[in-house]
């Protein structure tokens, strides 16, 4: 079964002169760990927005778990994202006013099904959060610290736990390691793999740093699948 399937997908930002995304076909199979290499300006975050259902496709289909996101209305797409997708961003992933555990449990407040799946694993959401953090080797003593006192690497583990709680089908990691030093980078990825396997989540890992790509099942260059990207069309959105 394909977790992600893109067919004849195009996308153009409102008022933009041409497409930023033009992909004939792209699939990610269930359980796969895919490395998607996309330097800035290749439509990377636009593509992630389409897969996440934040924006509807311009034309063509985005199927996630065989569900056509383009045919859902905006609030169904939001619900679908809450139920089935986990995200890890580059940095500053956490809400500063929530505790470590509250940050991890956050998705469960927007999705009943994730809450249920999390509670199927542990007795309480907090306990499930602690289990995930332990699996991701975050020091137990750090759990009661304010999140902004954690190091970047520690914060990314909390973010990974948040992406994984309630066993989402797909985890999208957008440059999650670019703020980490090279030593912690690989160990973070290995822990992420191990946890994705345990939760049977598929991983789409986006980065511009191909040094890491050898760890993955498959390596995809965005520029190769995105015909629009080849004409060096500037991205509408500014991306760091």
């Amino acid at each position: 079964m394909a977790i992600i399937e893109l067919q004849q997908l195009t996308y153009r930002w409102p008022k933009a002169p041409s497409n930023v995304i033009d992909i004939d076909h792209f699939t990610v199979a269930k359980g796969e760990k895919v490395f998607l290499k996309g330097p800035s300006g290749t439509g990377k975050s636009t593509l992630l927005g389409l897969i996440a259902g934040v924006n509807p496709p311009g034309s063509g289909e985005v199927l996630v778990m065989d569900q056509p996101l383009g045919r859902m209305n905006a609030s169904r797409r939001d619900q679908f994202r809450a139920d089935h997708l986990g995200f890890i961003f580059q940095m500053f992933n956490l809400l500063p006013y929530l505790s470590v555990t509250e940050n991890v449990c956050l998705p469960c407040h927007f999705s009943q099904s994730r809450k249920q799946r999390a509670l199927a694993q542990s007795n309480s959401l907090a306990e499930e959060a602690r289990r995930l953090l332990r699996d991701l080797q975050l020091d137990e003593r750090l759990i009661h610290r304010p999140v902004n006192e954690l190091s970047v690497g520690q914060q990314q583990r909390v973010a990974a736990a948040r992406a994984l709680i309630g066993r989402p089908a797909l985890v999208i990691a957008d440059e999650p390691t670019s703020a980490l030093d090279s030593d912690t980078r690989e160990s973070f990825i290995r822990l992420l793999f191990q946890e994705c396997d345990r939760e049977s989540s598929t991983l789409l890992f986006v980065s511009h740093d191909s040094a890491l790509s050898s760890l993955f099942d498959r390596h995809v260059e965005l520029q190769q699948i995105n015909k629009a990207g080849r004409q060096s069309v500037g991205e509408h959105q500014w991306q760091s």
Partner: protein
Amino acid sequence: MAIVNLAIKSLFNRKTTVLLTILAIAISVCLLLGVERIRTQAKESFANTISGTDLILGARTGPIQLLLYSVFRIGNATNNISWQSYQDIANHPAVEWTVPLSLGDSHRGHRVLGTTADYFTHYRYGQKQNLTFQAGEPFNSLLDAVIGAEVAKKLGYKIGDKIVVAHGAGATSFLEHDQFPFTVTGILAPTSTPVDRTVHVSLEAIEAIHTGWASGAPPLPGAMSTSNLDPAKLQPKVITAALVGLKSKVQMFGLQRVINDYKEEPLQAIIPGVALHELWNLMSVAEQALMAISGFVVVSGLLGMLTMILASLNERRREMAILRAVGCRPAQIFLLLISEAGILALTGSALGVVTLYGLLLLVQPFLLEHYGVLISVSLLTLYELKLLAVVCAMGLVVGLIPSIRAYRMSLSDGMTLRV
């Protein structure tokens, strides 16, 4: 519910600005309710001061002035009325009872009222309540005095204490009627009216302590004493005002006309309720101005909140992107912001109410003592609750502005993290 929880936690994370915003709203709400309360309660307190008196008779001045000096002991009489004229009116067939009032002296800042024992039966306050004694009895002999509850409490007087009356109405006086010390024979129960702050003596006593003062200065020491006073000469020649009760209310306007047209002397009769109404009319402009000002202060408090939330929006774009990524809908982002506004307005209002009660408890004795206005610390009235509801509703309306903006931002930004 999860969203409201997030809103509360997010507010807690910004303690300083949030606290200042709440404080600004609280102060404005406190001012609004305070003005409203003092306004209504001052009216009530005034309206409760006299009851059951149909007319007040006095020298011709303004109706409000006569009301103020005769009943509220505010200001001084410009003129007296002669005993003869008073007797003429008192003997009018429509009149059931009259109580003469003679003012002008004081005891340690408290007005001394010369009257008759009828005062204690005919003067009524509140809902036609009679004066009652908490100790002692009305004055019987010449130099007896009945004091109000507050005089007794403040000066610590008991039955049998001797007091000396001073000439004039000031708190300090260099001329004292010290040849004639009075004895406290009665202490009235509290009424929350100016009666509490009054020393009551007989009309004859007022006359007695002023004998020999023809030159405007006290007689030589030792020249006067109770023994050489001629009781027949203690008939008062003038009084300040009189309370008049009628056999039938129907005759009220008729008698008022008779008094106002009295040929021998320029007299005036006022109907207390009508005079009070004139007083309110006089004050209504000031009242409305005060209400308008406090309304504007509330608006500025809420604008402070708007500024605070709007200023926070840009730095919270990241927070919104994270929330969108975990499946939060733009509508929920809207709800998050509007609940922040709601929580701020509500907490501000609640703190305002608490501050108001604190202040009321603090200023209550002061207002009673200096202005004779009793502000009761009672529960919020329906009108006050409505005012609070309006403040909170306005807070939500003001909160729409950042909420709509955040909604739009979350739609356009999506999950893009903006540093």
